[in-house]
C-alpha cells in the first residue's frame, strides 16, 4: 500500500526544449523586440474593454492566444527557452501606478444576485447560504472561566475566594456573566455578587459592558453596571466598571492583571484591584474615596491551557474611612493571605 502512489511513467518522451514546442506558434514572435513598453500600449480608460476585445470563448483561449494583442508582449524566446536564470525578464512588468482604480463596469452589476438560485432553487440556496454565512463569519461561542477559585489561609481562619466569568456570543456582541465573592469557612460569605451584562466590542481590544449586578451577601443591593473590559498596551488585562445601586450609591472598581510567562506553562500573574466610592455607605462599611485595594501575585502551572493549579499571596487593605469602619467592627484593615487554587476554563 505504501507504493500505491508510485506511478512510474513508461516510455517517457524525449526532452522537449521550450523552442521545440511549436504548436502554439511561438516562432512567429521570436523577432519581436525584447523590451516592450507596456505603458505605450494603452488599452484605454477604465471600463472601455468592449466585448469586441474580449475573447469569444474561454475554452478557445489556450489555442488561439496568438492574436493581434500579442504585438505588445515582446519576449525573447531564445532567452526564455533556457530560462533557468530567467528571474528578471527583459520586458518590464506594467507598473500598478499606471492602472487606475475604478468601479466595475455596468455589466458587472447585471444578472441575478446569486447565480446558483435559478439552477438549484432560490429557497434551497437561501437556506444553504444562511448556514454558511453563520459558519463562515464567527459562530457564537460559549466560554466560562474561573480566573480565581482558591482557598486562603490566614491566622487559623481559612477562607475562600471565587472570581468567575463567562460569555456567549459572536465576535462583536456577547452576553457576559461575572460572579465573585469571598468568605471564611463556617461563616456567611463576606462579599458575593453576580453580574449579567451585554458586551459590545468598541475597538480592537476593548468591550463596552452594561447590565445589572446583584449583591448576594450582606444588605441586599442591586446595581446598574457599566464598564469596559479588554487588553491594554503591554498586555494588561483590564476590567473597569462603575455601579449605581438601588439606594443611589455610586461605586467603581478597576482590576488589572498581567500574565508573565516564565516558561511556556509556568506563569506569574501580578494582579491589582482598587475599589472606589463616591460617598460613605456605613451600612456596607464603605467609606468615600478609595475604599479597598487588593494586590496579589499568583504562580500557576498550565497542565493544560484550560487547567492550571496555582499558589500565591494576596494582600488586602481597607483605606481611609473604610479602614475606620473595619476597625470599629473589630476587623483588621489589612489582611495578608496565602492562597492556593486552580484557574480553569472551558
Amino acid at each position, binding site marked *: *500500500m505504501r*507504493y*500505491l502512489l*508510485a*506511478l*512510474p*511513467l513508461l516510455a*517517457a*518522451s*524525449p526532452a*522537449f526544449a521550450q523552442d521545440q*514546442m511549436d*504548436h502554439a506558434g*511561438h516562432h512567429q514572435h521570436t523577432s519581436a523586440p525584447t523590451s516592450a513598453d*507596456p505603458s505605450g500600449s*494603452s488599452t*484605454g480608460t*477604465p471600463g472601455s*474593454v468592449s466585448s469586441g476585445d474580449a*475573447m469569444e470563448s474561454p475554452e478557445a483561449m489556450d489555442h488561439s492566444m496568438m492574436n493581434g494583442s*500579442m504585438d505588445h*508582449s*515582446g*519576449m525573447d524566446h531564445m532567452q526564455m527557452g533556457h530560462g*533557468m536564470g*530567467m528571474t528578471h*525578464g527583459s520586458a518590464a*512588468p*506594467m507598473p*500598478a501606478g499606471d*492602472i*487606475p*482604480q*475604478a468601479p*466595475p463596469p455596468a*455589466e*458587472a452589476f447585471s*444578472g441575478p*444576485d*446569486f*447565480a*446558483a438560485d435559478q439552477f*438549484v432553487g432560490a429557497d*434551497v440556496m437561501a437556506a444553504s*447560504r444562511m448556514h*454558511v454565512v453563520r*459558519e*463562515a*463569519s*464567527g459562530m457564537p*461561542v460559549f466560554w466560562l472561566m474561573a480566573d480565581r477559585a482558591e482557598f486562603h489561609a490566614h491566622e487559623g481562619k481559612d477562607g475562600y475566594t471565587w472570581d468567575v466569568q463567562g460569555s456567549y456570543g459572536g465576535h*462583536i456582541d456577547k452576553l457576559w456573566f461575572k460572579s465573585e465573592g469571598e468568605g471564611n469557612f463556617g461563616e456567611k460569605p463576606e462579599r458575593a455578587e453576580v453580574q449579567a451584562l451585554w458586551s459590545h*466590542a468598541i475597538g*480592537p481590544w476593548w468591550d463596552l459592558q452594561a447590565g445589572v449586578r446583584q449583591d448576594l451577601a450582606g444588605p441586599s443591593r442591586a446595581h446598574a453596571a457599566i464598564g469596559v473590559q479588554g487588553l491594554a498596551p*503591554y498586555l494588561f488585562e483590564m476590567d473597569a466598571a462603575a455601579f449605581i445601586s438601588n439606594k443611589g450609591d455610586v461605586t467603581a472598581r478597576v482590576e488589572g492583571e498581567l500574565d508573565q510567562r*516564565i*516558561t511556556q506553562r509556568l506563569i506569574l500573574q501580578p494582579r491589582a484591584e482598587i475599589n472606589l466610592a463616591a460617598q460613605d455607605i456605613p451600612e456596607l462599611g464603605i467609606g468615600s474615596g478609595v475604599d479597598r485595594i487588593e494586590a496579589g501575585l499568583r504562580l500557576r502551572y498550565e497542565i493544560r*491551557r484550560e487547567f492550571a493549579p496555582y499558589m500565591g499571596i494576596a494582600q488586602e487593605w481597607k483605606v481611609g474611612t473604610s479602614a475606620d469602619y473595619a476597625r470599629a467592627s473589630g476587623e483588621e484593615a489589612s489582611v495578608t493571605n496565602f492562597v492556593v487554587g486552580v484557574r480553569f*476554563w*472551558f
Partner: protein
Amino acid sequence: MMSEIDRRKFLTAGAASMGTLGLMQAMPAWATGHANGTLARRGSDVLAGEHLTMTVADAAFRTGKRYGPAVTVNGTLPGPLVRLKEGQNLVVDLVNHSSGGTSVHWHGLLVPFLMDGVPGVTMAAVKPGETFRYEFPIRQSGTYWWHAHTLQEPMGHYGPIVIDPLEPDPFTWDREYVLMLSDWSPMHPMTVMKKLRTQADYFNYHRTTATDDYALSGAERRMWAKMRMSPTDIADIGGWTYTYLINGHGPDDGLELPFTPGERLRLRIINGSAMTFFNIRVPGLPMTVVAADGQNVNPVETDEFQIGVAETYDVLITPQNADAFAFVAESIDRSGMGVAMLASRPGARASVPALRKPPVLTMADMGMAMNAGAMAGMDHGAMDGMDMSGMDMGTGKGNTGSGMNMRDTARLPASVKAGPGMDMVAMHPADRMDFPGLGLDQAGHRVLTYKQLTAARTNPDLRRPSRLKEIHLTGNMERYMWSFDGQKFDAVTDKPIRFAFNERVRVRLVNDTMMVHPIHLHGHFFELVNGAPSDRQPRKHTVNVQPGGSATFDLTADTPGDWPFHCHLFYHMHQGMFQIVTVRPLQEGAGQ
C-alpha cells in the same frame, strides 16, 4: 497513616474527575474525540476514467499516538487520487454515507460554477444519505487537488488530482510520486475553532517567555507587548496539536518512496493542510521546480521552498550517490514535520534533519518597509538585531508622540471598514514577491521566491488590465476575527466583488495583518505580477500574501458565475475571511 494516604488518593481522584467532567460538559459528544466508523487506511487508491464514485464516510484515524475521528472518501485518508486526461469528460457521483454535510470542490480546476462544489454559493451541502453528480469537461493539465468545502475538510476529506496533458510536458522524468501534505488532529474542527476564539495563542508553545532564547532585545519585547501582538505568531496551530502527514503517513509511519539511483523523479507536491505552510527540502539534493499550481513554469533550481496552504508545486530531483534521501516538510513554525524516505532499496534510511529554530516576526512583517517597493534591497537579517524602540523616526504622520501608530486607519482607502475586527494597518505595505517565506530569508542556501517563477507558455490574455482593484486582508488575532476590507462574510454576503465577463483587472492584495494568508480564487487562474514579462507572469490559483506586505495579480474574469474568494487557512475562512466574486452577465447555459 493508611487513612491519610487513602484520603489523599480520594482527593486526587475527585479533583481529576471533576476536571474531566467540567471539560466534557462543554463539548458535544462528537467533539470529545470519540471516533466512530472504521479505521481509515493511509494513502490513496487511484480513480481513473470518465465515471467515478466517491463515497464519504465517518471514520477513525490513527497516527503515532494520536487517534480520533476522521472523515474518509472511499475509505482512505487522503481520499483517492483522481487521475484524468486533458480533454476527457468527467462524471463523479458523490455519495454521502457520513453524518455531516459534504461536497467536493475541485481546487484549481476550470469548471462551470455550478460544479465548483461550495455549499451556500454553488450548491447546497449534500446531506447524509444523499448523492450529488458532478459533470464537467477537463480543460487543463497538471497537479491539483480536491477537498470538501465543509467542516469535513480538515478531518480528512481531501485528495490529489493529476491530469495528464494532451501535449507532452516540456521536461521528462522516469518515475513520479504524488506527495499530499496535510495536518491532522484528533480534535474536532469545531473544538479547534472554539479554542482559537477563546485564546488565540492556545495552540502555540513557541511564545516568548522570560527563559526563551529568541534573539529579541528587551526593548523589542516591550514594543511587541505594547502593540498587544506576538512576534511568535507564525502559525495559529502547531505540532503540539497536529501530526503532519504525507499521503496520510505521519513522520513515524515509515513512508518509503523507492528510486533507482540516477533516475529522474517528478514529485507532485500538494499542500492539502487546513492551517500549515511547509518548508520543503530534500537535504543533499537540488530540486528543479517545473510547475506551480498545476501550470508549467520555466525550470528553476532551488534547495528549498515554502509551500502555502492549497498550493501545488512539481519538482524534478535526481537522487544518486546515496542509498536514501529524506523528503522533509517542516511546518512554518518549526514545531513538527512530515517525512518521507526516498530509498534505493527497502529499508534504506537517510538521517532526518532536526527542526530548525522557530522564526520570529520582523519589522517587514509589520508592514514597515521604509519605502514601498524598496524591499528587494533590504537586509532582513540586519533588521532582526535592530532596536525597534527607536523606530518612530521616518514613519511619517500618524505617530503619537513617543511611539508609532500600528493602526493608523487614515492610511486606509474608504473601501475598508476599520472596526474592532482590525488590529493593525500596514504602514508601508511593500510588494513581497521576493520574500522566500517566514524563517527562510536566512536559510543559508537557495530558497524559491515568487519572483523566480515565469510561465512556460505565453499567457492566454495579453490585454493590459483596464482597472486596479485593491483588497485589504484584515484581522484581529486577539479576537480571532478575519476579513477582507474589514468586513466578514456576513457583512458582505450580498456585496460581492464584482467583475464583468472577460474583464481584465489588476488586483492588489494588501495584508494588514502579521500573518501570511494563502488567498484562493475559485474557477480561475490569475497571473502574479512578479516582475516577469507581462506575457510570462506565472499563473496561479492561490497566492501567499506575506505579512504586512502586498501581492498583485492580473485576472481575466473569463467564467461567469459566483466564485468564492477566501483565505485558505481553514479557520480564517471560518471566522470571516471569505467573500463571493461575481462574474456577470451570466451567459446562456452558464453553469451547465
